[in-house]
């Protein structure tokens, strides 16, 4: 498929250069149509599908990561601090941004699909122009995403993910080897699914597959979300997520 796309791309570039060489710098894939993913997609059910804590679809962890996760769960049960960097407005990263209960929109162009998440006003660029991943990839929160179309299904591969982000708010970890595969497609006039496969040989004993189901709202808009506007739940130096009063003083008995 990648090869077909590349051939189409080269062909379209040639056509473009023949037609109006001086003005056209954007490669267009001739004759290609795309599915209608317009509108805003409600992801408020996201938590129910991809969070281990939901018990609906728990991953099978390797012994090392199972022990680490148990330690986090035990700490939470005993009321000890469990660090969640997103409480300090740090980006959740991929794949956690996919399961935040905030809507998103997809902007489809020939060379990319841009996903605009309302949560923390995140933007993901999925390159569909045939490029590969960079060799000297610096790990990031949202990593590097490349994709291609298989009919009307967008197939995405994301790598280069920082190992210090968590999969979800229960504190499930992943390693720097995490690779996230997505298959995004319409399942009805106003329903879409994102089948996510998380492959991480250090953390998960087998690929962990979870499917998000989103619902279209054509009358919704993506709203602003500025996490630093009034964050009254910062993380203390001991790692505890605090609760501040209206004057900015912690009301927690222990900090």
């Amino acid at each position, binding site marked *: 498929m990648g090869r077909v796309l590349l051939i189409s791309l080269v062909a379209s570039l040639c056509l473009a250069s023949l037609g109006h060489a001086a003005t056209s710098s954007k490669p267009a894939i001739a004759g290609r149509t795309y599915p209608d993913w317009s509108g805003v997609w409600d992801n408020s059910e996201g938590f129910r599908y991809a969070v281990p804590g939901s018990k609906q679809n728990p991953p099978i962890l390797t012994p090392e990561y199972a022990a680490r996760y148990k330690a986090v769960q035990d700490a939470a049960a005993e009321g000890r601090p469990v660090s969640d960097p997103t*409480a300090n407005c740090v980006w959740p990263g991929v794949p956690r941004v996919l399961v935040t209960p905030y809507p998103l929109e997809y902007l489809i162009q020939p060379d990319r699909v841009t996903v605009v998440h309302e949560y923390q006003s995140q933007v993901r660029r999925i390159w569909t122009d045939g490029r590969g991943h960079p060799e000297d990839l610096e790990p990031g929160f949202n990593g590097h995403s490349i994709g291609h179309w298989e009919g009307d299904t967008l197939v995405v591969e994301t790598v280069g993910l920082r190992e210090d982000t968590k999969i979800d708010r229960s504190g499930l970890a992943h390693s720097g080897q995490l690779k996230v595969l997505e298959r995004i497609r319409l399942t009805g006039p106003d329903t879409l699914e994102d089948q996510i496969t998380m492959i991480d040989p250090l953390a998960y004993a087998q690929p962990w597959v979870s499917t998000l189901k989103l619902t279209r709202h054509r009358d919704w808009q993506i709203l602003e*979300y500025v996490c630093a506007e*009034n964050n009254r739940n910062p993380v203390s130096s001991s790692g505890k997520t605090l609760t501040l009063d209206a004057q900015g003083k912690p009301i*927690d008995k222990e900090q």
Partner: protein
Amino acid sequence: MKTTTQLTLGLALAVFAGTAFGHHSFAMFDSEKEVVVEGTVREFQWTNPHSWIQLVVTEAGQPVEYSIEADSPNILSRRGWSKASFAPGDRVKITIHPMKDGSKGGSYVTAVLANGKTL
């Protein structure tokens, strides 16, 4: 047996009701407990990442201010809330999941507003 079933159902609902919060862990709140606090709104912060209601409650004859954390304006506006949902001076009854450590705060569950409507 019936009591057990109802308790289990209640717990399941409580857990589900808490899932809308997206920003951070809500471990500081007791999601299995619900408390009703009645008082006067001092301030309503219609802000990200969370909205807050500052509610002055009289306890043992003294005014005590509760910090009640609700969802973001993004999520709440789609459920019919607005920045005018609470106004200073409103007398309201708010059901919260209280802070586990007994501090004067909690996460919002539901409320009976000044006009008698439930939000």
